[in-house]
């Protein structure tokens, strides 16, 4: 092999670089995020798996249907009715955004810009103060 003294250390260095994150996370257990669930409520509008997978699509549908079509009542898969409202329905139960929404969003590095306009809970006393460092969606 030509230039083995360069190529072999090069390959070793490359592999070390590639597997560095694997080595870094070795023995750290399963990746898990635990948002705090409401204590006085048992059921969300849909089951937990659906909410985990599809809450963004559901919220997107809610916003279009409520704002553009004026259809503001959501009927879930069990036939139960809910008002389509992020602040007034979701945040009535999930009262603390930092202990629920942010737990996952921060971990996976997404910053939805809901809170640029929407209020955190229907009980909020004053508007959300000015966001520092473009925290709220960065625009």
């Amino acid at each position, binding site marked *: 092999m030509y230039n083995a003294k360069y190529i072999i250390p090069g390959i070793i260095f490359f592999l070390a670089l590639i597997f560095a994150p694997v080595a870094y996370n070795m023995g750290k257990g399963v990746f898990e995020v635990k948002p705090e669930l409401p204590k006085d409520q048992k059921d969300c509008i849909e089951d937990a798996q659906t909410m985990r997978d599809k809450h963004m699509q559901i919220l997107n549908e809610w916003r279009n249907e409520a704002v553009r079509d004026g259809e503001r009542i959501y009927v879930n898969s069990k036939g139960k009715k809910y008002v389509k409202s992020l602040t007034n329905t979701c945040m009535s139960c999930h009262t603390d955004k930092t202990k629920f929404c942010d737990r996952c969003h921060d971990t996976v590095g997404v910053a939805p810009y809901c809170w640029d*306009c929407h209020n955190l809970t*229907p009980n909020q006393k004053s508007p959300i103060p000015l966001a520092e460092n473009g925290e709220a969606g960065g625009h």
Partner: protein
Amino acid sequence: MKNTRREFLKLAAVSAIGVGAGRLGFLGDAPAHAGPLPGVANFEEGLKAKHWGMAIFTAKMTPELIEKCRTACHTEHNVPDIPGNKNIKWFWGASFEESFPTEHGHYLSEEVEHREFPLLCNQCETPMCVKVCPTQATFQRPDGIVMMDFHRCIGCRYCMAGCPFGARSFNFQDPRPFIKHFNPHFPTRMRGVVEKCNFCAERLAIGKMPMCVEAAGGALVFGDLADENSDVRKVLREHFAIRRKPDAGTSPSVYYIL
């Protein structure tokens, strides 16, 4: 030099944490201005119409009553109170000359000339703002309400140029610090979107009349212009009414009884 910069950065980091922690403090228990949260039952009683419209008894609308309506509206919708020409208007008052410039009233009755007229979005039948909006953020509902989907607004301000009535306002800055009376049940807006009166679509959806109509105590009549038995049509049948700038061709749904 290096040390002072390091100290400064440390201090900045600590302050940033402080500001971050401070954001949790406003999560209170009792809402500031809102009533009980509307539920599914309220939304099932929503008001429906073919063409929402309004008639205004301008003689009954004193400056005090206009101010009362304005406060009621702006409180409900979290409209910021910004002094100067960056102000946001959903409901406001103006003179005859400003309100009806195409009337060219030379020898007006003094009472009408000095009267203050309540102004709001005219909810036009052929709205200019909807035609010019490049993202369809402003759209017309089947019941005639010209509404805004703030999610889609890109802040191009074409609608402001298009509207012949100055009914639209632009958020030049974050409006939240300027909200005096806060309603947690209605969203606020962000910097860079246009906003205007929505004929209280969110209240009609729970079977309630618009805020200004409720506050005006009979001086504003609201109803279905397509239904000849409605209150608003009855009032318009009995009184002579004019609309603002009819030659702009937008056909407003707000009528002024002089």
